[in-house]
């Protein structure tokens, strides 16, 4: 099913990616092409097949509930785009 520009705009909004208006049509064409190509999976009989989520059995990894690291505020903040008094500075979220 081909994607129209409204759908692409909605998906881009969900993905939190700004897409300029003038690129929507081209992007809709590319994404529709990819989706049309993957639709051939419909030919495969998957009746009763369990979806595969991991190639090896997933082991539940347990560990003792102890503090393993911490006290590394400087390392955590080292790449912050903006920081102040040992905190990240982010855009206002509460008006």
């Amino acid at each position, binding site marked *: 099913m081909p994607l129209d520009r409204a759908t692409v705009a909605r998906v881009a909004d969900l993905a939190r990616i700004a897409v300029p208006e003038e690129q929507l049509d081209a992007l809709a064409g590319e994404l529709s092409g990819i989706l049309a190509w993957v639709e051939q999976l419909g030919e495969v009989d998957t009746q009763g097949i369990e979806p595969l989520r991991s*190639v*090896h059995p997933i082991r539940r990894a347990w560990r003792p509930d102890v503090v393993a690291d911490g006290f590394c505020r400087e390392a955590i903040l080292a*790449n912050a785009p903006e920081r102040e008094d040992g905190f990240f500075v982010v855009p206002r979220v509460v008006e």
Partner: protein
Amino acid sequence: MTRLERLGLVEARTLLRRRAIGAVELTRACLAAMERNRALNAFITETPERALAMAEAADARLARGEGGPLEGLPIAVKDLFCTEGVRTTAGSKILANFVPPYESTVTARLWAAGAVLLGKTNLDEFAMGSSNTTSAFGPVVNPWTPAGSSPPFVPGGSSGGSAAAVAGFLCPAATGTDTGGSIRQPASFCGIVGIKPTYGRCSRFGIVAFASSLDQAGAFARSVADAALLLQAMAGFDPKDSTSAELPVPDWSGELRGRVKGLRIGIPKEYRLDGMPSEIETLWARGADWLRAQGAELVEVSLPHTRYALPTYYIVAPAEASSNLARYDGMRYGLRVTGRDLVDTYKKTRGEGFGAEVRRRILIGTYVLSAGYYDAYYLKAQKVRRRIVEDFEAAFARCDALLTPTAPSAAFRIGERSDDPVAMYLNDVFTVTVNLAGLPGISVPAGLSAAGLPLGLQVIGKPWDEATVLEVARALEEAAEFRALPPGVVEA
């Protein structure tokens, strides 16, 4: 001693241990080769000071008769592995200034083994690509490009910088990662060896995540023995990665003999594609003859769902990528482009920070995971993925390893196949099945195309059986006697 940069890992190790050469001397030779060949654009970040300091420390240990299995050996690292204090970009503008405060497990193992970091190699942005043309730091040039030939040939991708650096004698070996063919396809395009081990062999901790159920680290080198040596140092259980396997790592490099006598080698009939160049078909048949002549038994096997592997991959990988890349929001690290409010800041940051291919894959992934489409796309792909795994299980009931071409063509030129995303995706038709099934695979240089470009053969093994993969690869290497040299390397 001249041209130290041409030594392989095993050779250099012997000379270092004998003190016939020094680690500093060897490192300087590689750094000089890197500098002469900057036009290849193989490195995003060179680390000469760190390299020389590490080499000096290695020389001191070697002088005391100490040192790990890679003591004093200089290597390059794909710029997808976090390296403490050394910028790690993933080939993206969004991480252009990111300096990790921690080390990936794989690289930590390498430094513990005595290896020397030369620098961080170029790659497709977030490892998404098959030509190294999606990097925010520009395309990499394949050293097999003859002087004056324009536009240059691509090195393949996504680990294009690592492959070009090893092929161009800038370093003896390099790390890579492989999600759909990102080690094996560039190895084939550049005429070197590239191995991706079984999913779970190498820890993914500290590797910038693309598609977590498919990503696996591996090694590039100019010989099978060198690749085995590097991989052995990279592999091993890590409690920090819940998918890493708690299994001992065999002595792959020590046990390597190239013996295939009595092995059953499967030839999957579905890998004969319509329209595949006849030189690929010829090379494949020659590879089968080489193994037969050395005492292997060749059997035809069937992998009936092969043609569905790429479409499956292009649902599973973007879905996982859209989730993994949600972390790049411009708040705690990476690029931030300030907008009207929080959501607008997210959108502008991600819109400007991600390149076209990454954006495309995030959007596809978001779409196939969105309400109303999840079952039709994502769940369906996970079911087909199981059928692909079952194909391999049935094939491996009849043989010990599989032999296939690595890629459906030799290297192409920068700019070719860039108009149609699907045409670019077809590069990985023979490699992507291996990631979907989590198997080990290797590419070995086996010959030249009519145009004089390298072509590789792929060996695929059972889960955890890298040993057989390496044995078969060694046998191919011995028979192929691939000695051709890339014409696009600047000599001292």
